[in-house]
């Protein structure tokens, strides 16, 4: 098959907030273009994983090729799906880089949200053609006029340019497809130059190995040719090349502007990284496409099996997940409190939650995770520098300085909550960069915030202080020096590693009091008094006591009581295996879980 004329190709993505109906609209397009028939339509065809489907979000983007005729001319539309969450902003930027146009999809009942805005800015930076679309116009609560105005204000142009569709009923979808053909610039590239294709996604498939999604920028990739990854210099034979429409279909090759997939037989997505450039081995390109970045975990958490004997199963599961997730890292660690586990690195909190949920659901593991933390860069007086990913490994001794990652955060909110949000950001060591009105009653606030503060229940707080109306987006913005200390928690003088935390000096006391109070309620009374302390170094900042247990005896033990008591003892003996011992203090694992849970539950 000869390659398509690039003039007849339109590559676009849909930028939308979770719940704004992107998947439904995408499904509609698949049906309208005849790629999928109504009958076999799975709901949300593009979101393959269960978790994604349940959460209504897209983690892994994919690309579908659809034919669409305007006038007498048939065009090829490539719809590139984008991940919809803040943790995956780099992946989003690569998906955008594979397109010339973006459909900016906004719920006509809710208006634009912070993440959508952030992605819109990315698209504008990438010089994409933006097609503003209001979705869900069938809803009674829809206010299309209001939000058309808001969109016009954001991207310029008139509110009338804003298309109005309903993914649910199909209204306006054909017009949108026409508009994509008319408004999105066709791809431009040098067909005779050495091949360069941008990897915008890479997915591990247990049958086929890694499936790499690419957009060809220059030149041509052919089946059976040898290709090279420009960042790693690794070369592979192309076992298969093709397009998705909607199932993978092998082709002879991919030319300028085309979007499709490659299979080389590699087994690990790290060998086929998002953002990397694919070129031909025989005539390699000299220069890679711009914008490649090594994925770097930003948030760390210890994952431990509740049942210690599940440790090998956890390790196997992590090995498997890693194949499909280049940003996810882990290494073994041991905790006195929690036993054997792994310190895992994630792009962000959602990424953490997703991995955790997959481990529990797909691999049937019961896990405890420690409170998430960021990476600290600690410089000692002697000039040595440490990267600390686990608070309990925070160096003791003469610390010259500590740097922590900071982010640039964008918060969109109805104007009535501005004060509440400013208070929140203030209490989280935020520095305001600016604020703008999106419309009469909607505001964009921009802050510099320590990532550590966002990791600690910021999102929950934001939602609860704004009745759920505010939305948040953030992107890494380097590191900053801060006055940070390590707070340890001690039981009977023994440090409990799982509860150590690095906090700002001004908040150390509050953290100590909170943790100590929480543990006092959770630790069962022992035959001796158990002091619980929070300390910075050797300085105790908070203390509570679990009083000694005085009475633990069955009053009557006759006849049938004997059998019942023995069975209870047998059960308790079993339960004792799940007890963790800190010093001489026996603590049921449930207490650890409860003590850790209130921090981890926040990023929903």
């Amino acid at each position: 098959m000869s390659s398509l004329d690039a003039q007849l190709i339109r590559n676009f993505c849909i930028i939308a907030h979770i719940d704004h109906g992107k998947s439904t609209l995408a499904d509609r397009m698949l049906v309208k273009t005849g790629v999928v028939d109504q009958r076999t339509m799975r709901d949300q065809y593009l979101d393959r994983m269960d978790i994604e489907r349940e959460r209504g979000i897209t983690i892994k983007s994919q690309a579908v090729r659809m034919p669409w005729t305007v006038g007498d001319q048939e065009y090829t539309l490539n719809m590139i799906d984008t991940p919809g969450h803040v943790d995956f902003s780099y992946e989003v930027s690569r998906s955008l880089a594979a397109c010339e146009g973006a459909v900016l999809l906004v719920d006509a009942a809710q208006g634009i949200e912070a993440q959508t805005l952030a992605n819109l800015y990315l698209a504008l930076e990438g010089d994409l053609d933006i097609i503003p679309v209001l979705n869900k116009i069938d809803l009674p609560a829809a206010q299309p006029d209001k939000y058309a105005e808001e969109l016009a204000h954001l991207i310029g142009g008139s509110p009338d340019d804003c298309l109005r569709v309903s993914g649910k009923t199909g209204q306006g979808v054909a017009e949108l497809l026409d508009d994509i053909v008319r408004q999105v610039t066709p791809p431009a590239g040098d067909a005779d130059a050495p091949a360069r294709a941008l990897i915008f996604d890479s997915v591990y498939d247990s049958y086929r190995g890694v499936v790499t999604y690419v957009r060809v920028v220059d030149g041509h990739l052919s089946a059976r040719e040898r290709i090279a990854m420009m960042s790693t210099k690794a070369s592979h034979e192309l076992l298969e090349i093709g397009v998705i429409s909607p199932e993978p279909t092998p082709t002879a090759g991919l030319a300028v502007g085309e979007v499709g997939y490659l299979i080389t037989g590699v087994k690990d997505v790290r060998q086929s990284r998002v953002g990397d450039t694919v070129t031909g081995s025989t005539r390699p390109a000299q220069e890679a496409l711009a914008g490649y970045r090594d994925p770097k975990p930003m948030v760390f958490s210890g994952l431990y099996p509740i049942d210690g004997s599940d440790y090998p199963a956890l390790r196997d599961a992590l090995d498997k997940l890693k194949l499909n997730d280049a940003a996810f890292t882990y290494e073994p660690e041991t905790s006195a409190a929690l036993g054997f586990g792994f310190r895992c690195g994630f792009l962000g909190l959602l990424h953490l939650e997703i991995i955790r949920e997959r481990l529990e659901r797909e691999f049937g593991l019961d896990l405890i995770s420690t409170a998430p933390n960021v990476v600290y860069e600690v410089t000692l007086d002697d000039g040595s520098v440490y990267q600390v990913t686990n608070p309990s490994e925070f160096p003791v001794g003469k610390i010259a300085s500590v740097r922590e990652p900071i982010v640039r955060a964008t918060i969109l909110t109805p104007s009535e909550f501005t004060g509440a949000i400013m208070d929140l950001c203030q209490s989280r060591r935020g520095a305001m960069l600016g604020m703008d009105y999106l419309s009469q009653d909607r505001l964009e606030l921009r802050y510099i915030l320590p990532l550590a503060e966002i990791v600690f229940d910021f999102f929950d707080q934001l939602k609860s202080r704004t009745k759920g109306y505010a939305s948040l987006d953030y992107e890494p913005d380097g590191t900053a020096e801060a006055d940070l200390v390590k707070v340890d928690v001690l039981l009977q003088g023994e440090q409990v590693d799982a509860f150590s935390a690095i906090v700002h000096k001004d908040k150390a006391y509050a953290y100590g009091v909170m943790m100590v109070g929480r543990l006092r309620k959770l630790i069962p009374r022992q035959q001796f008094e158990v002091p619980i302390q929070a300390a910075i170094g050797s300085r105790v900042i908070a203390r509570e006591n679990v009083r000694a247990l005085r009475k633990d005896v069955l009053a009557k033990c006759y006849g049938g009581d004997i059998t019942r008591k023995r069975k209870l003892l047998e059960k308790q003996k079993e339960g004792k295996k799940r007890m963790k011992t800190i010093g001489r203090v026996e603590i049921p694992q449930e207490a650890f879980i409860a003590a850790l849970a209130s921090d981890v539950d926040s990023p929903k």
Partner: protein
Amino acid sequence: MAPPFQIYVHVPFCARRCGYCDFNTYVAGPERRRAFVNHALAELEMAGAELDAAGSLRSVVNNHAPTVLTPGSGMLTSGNAAVGAAPTLASRFIHRLARRPAQSVFFGGGTPTLLSAVELARLVGAVRRIFGIAPGAEVTVEANPDTIGPVYLETLAAAGFTRLSLGMQSAVPRILAALDRSHDPARLPEVVRAAAQAGLDVSVDLIYGTPGESLADWEASLRAALDLGVRHISAYALSLEPHTPMARRIAAGQLAAIDPDQQAEKYELADRLFQGAGLHWYEISNWSRPGCESRHNLGYWTGADWRGIGPGAHSSMAAERWWNVKSPVAYGRALEAGRSPKAGGERLDQAALALERVMLRLRTARGLDLAALSDSGRAAVPDLVAEGLVRVVAPSDRSAAACPGGAEAGEAGFATQASPDVSGGGTPGGVPRLVLTRRGRLLADLVTRQLV
């Protein structure tokens, strides 16, 4: 030699249900109570026949290894369904399944004295006829102080009862009301006197830690009990059983919660006052004059065989444990149809037997032979000693005393003949024993968990 054999008869009736109680007991009229007596008599007959069947099969067991005894069903089953150790257990324990005289009989409830004295006498008579009652055996009936008078007590004594266990609970009317107990505490001395006149030994039961009970209330009850001059007192911490009206009222905030620390204080007060009055501690919740321990209850903690009669009653013969259906109606229906009222059962393996041994012996003043502990259990001992929860007692040959009032006790020898496991004393040439300290008694379950 076989350990003592004893019989428990559960009388599942009360005049009213008390708010704290979750025992298997019902409010029922005289016809149902009469019917129960007939059912209990039928079960006693059945129990005797079962033991005969099992006892006569000693030779069979010895010759055919894979034979399993299930005395609860009165049958022998053969086959491979049994656990591997069963033949050994069976041949080891077979002599314990033969019919032999009861060393003690105990009527509990419920309120056994809701039955007429004649009905109780019939039941004791049946035990004597079917199993025999050993000379000097202890025959106890639990009683509610407001249901009995002198004639009733004399009838019981004449029928062979030797001991009365009175549910005194408290001397404070407000606390009795909180427990739904209707008796007049002022009647206690009179009942105790009448019982003594009838020749019955008397024990009283007390409950501490009732919501609203002050330390002074408890002390008043303790002194009132001691003033009765009884030779045996049981003092039980009120334990809140789920699904009782009291548990619901506490959950709803209508009653004060039970404070275990205060219960501990009350226990210590009781122990001090009792020991000061010459009542020695011999089990977690029991104190007596030397030699006046309840031999029936000691049997539960020192490995006796016990056969329970009545709805929901549990039986334990050698390694077999089984229990009857709880409902008196289902119980009666089974017996009327000539079927066993057994609802379920299990065979205890060596591990379960060992666990029970630690759990039960540790409750007693005689304590637990160190030799009965596993290696890991023994390893826990030094810490427990250091924490003041247990002490290790050297073997001694102090012999058991006889109860001064119950003159027969010494002769017939539950204490001396059948089981050496009575209060205080040690075994001649025995091994060191582990005995709970006063603080350890209050943490007996915790200590047990560390020893098993």
